[in-house]
């Protein structure tokens, strides 16, 4: 089980208190009805799914209930840092910046999924 630091509660707590909310810094258009099918697909369905450093959203659902962002290595599952929603995407020394820091989107339905066999 992961140990996750909530940047609001300033405490490292068990994963059970948190809900993962997918890739961070995916910008939602303020005119969603006007975006092209291609841009909508990119926003809604396409994910970076990196092997390595991921920027992702978490929600402290059984605590302060707030969304925040985290930087994690998807190979070791180690967290590098967590930071508050709205703060710019931190640029890590080891990783060259590809895109400009963007404002994270506010809230989306937290998802959970189960295996199917």
């Amino acid at each position, binding site marked *: 089980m992961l140990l996750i630091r909530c940047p609001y509660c300033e405490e490292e707590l068990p994963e059970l208190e948190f809900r993962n909310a997918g890739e961070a810094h995916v910008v939602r258009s303020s005119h969603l009805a006007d975006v092209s099918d291609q841009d909508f*697909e990119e926003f809604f369905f396409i994910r*970076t799914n990196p092997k390595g450093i991921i920027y992702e959203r978490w929600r402290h659902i059984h605590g302060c209930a707030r969304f925040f962002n985290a930087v994690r290595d998807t190979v070791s599952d180690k967290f590098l840092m967590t930071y508050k929603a709205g703060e710019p995407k931190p640029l890590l020394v080891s990783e060259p910046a590809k895109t400009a820091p963007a404002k994270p989107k506010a809230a989306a339905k937290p998802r959970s999924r*189960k295996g199917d066999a």
Partner: protein
Amino acid sequence: MRKYSAFAIAREAMRGHKGWEQQWRSPEPKASYDVIIVGAGGHGLATAYYLAKEHGITNVAVLDKGWLGGGNTGRNTTIIRSNYLYDESAGIYDHALKLWDGLSQDLNYNVMYSPRGVMMLAHNVHDVQVLKRHVHANRLNGIDNEWLTPEEAKEFCPPLNISRNARYPVVGATLQRRGGTARHDAVAWGYARGADARGVDIIQNCEVTGIRRSPEGHVLGVETSRGFIGAKKVGVVAAGHTSVLMEMAGVRMPLESYPLQALVSEPIKPIFPCVVMSNTVHAYISQSDKGELVIGAGTDQYTSYSQTGGLHIINHTLDAICEMFPIFTRMKMLRSWGGIVDVTPDRSPILAKTPVKGLYVNCGWGTGGFKATPGSGNVFAHTIARDEPHPINAPFTLERFRTGRLIDEAAAAAVAH
């Protein structure tokens, strides 16, 4: 390839078993191939097998960064069924089920396909509605699936607790009698042997690190840990690593990779006659021919490539198993492990051409693609050989996430969520 038969066993018994051949070669990669398949899991090997067998394309290599069958093919709980809701899914999964039926004979390799019946439990009104909807939809598609009362379910699977006071009461179940299990390793090995015998090179410990393209964008081959290998066509069949590979050709995918775990108990005498799945409390269970209970859990909530998952996930599954089958409460678990599954937004696979000429992708099978192995390889081989999809996989495009023609098995709740 020397055929396996009862006679061969008798002959080898007389000769001290010294005459068995290696099942496949370990060749050095050639400079180039007509087709390179990236990923020697069941789907990749089946693709190569059918390319050679049905399309006469034998100048083929299957590359794997590890050993063949070492990915999800060798890590899954081997449940086979075809009772999916939508017509498109029914088409592809039942195509696979029909191939399972003659596969051991076709491959001359015992894949131990055992149609022992897959039962899916309903615990509440919503489950009843969803599962009955599946029964009706399946029947319209000519796929067997029937409704059982709790008593009938217990008769079919005696260890099941159908007490009304159970924590997860069983209010009914569906049963697909043609569903069952198969020996996962044997599936990979059987396809590998069959493909190798037809001239396909299976190259293990060969990691693909890049996809080389011409200035016009056409695929030229792959960079690997063993050097550049040229190819006219490349098929990516890499399950959890698909996003990483497609990124090498500049294609961003609608995929996320999650850990999915399974575990087995100590071996016991035959007690469990079928496969039981409960999507609502999330557990599935069967008994292997070795006697182990084979139990599948859910995915972790975060993406990962670590091939391990959280202990609380399998704990939760065992809680459910013990409630539904109190007879197992004192069993000991022997091993648990994880695989990395590639999940699409609509929980249906992608078997398609891509925007890159000469590049094909077969992925997104997520938590449930073992059952589809023969059908998937069969229609994907067609797609690569003819440069156009087979009617069965034609709906499973990459573009559906742009056009909106999803095959939304997720919302159809073949899976609870």
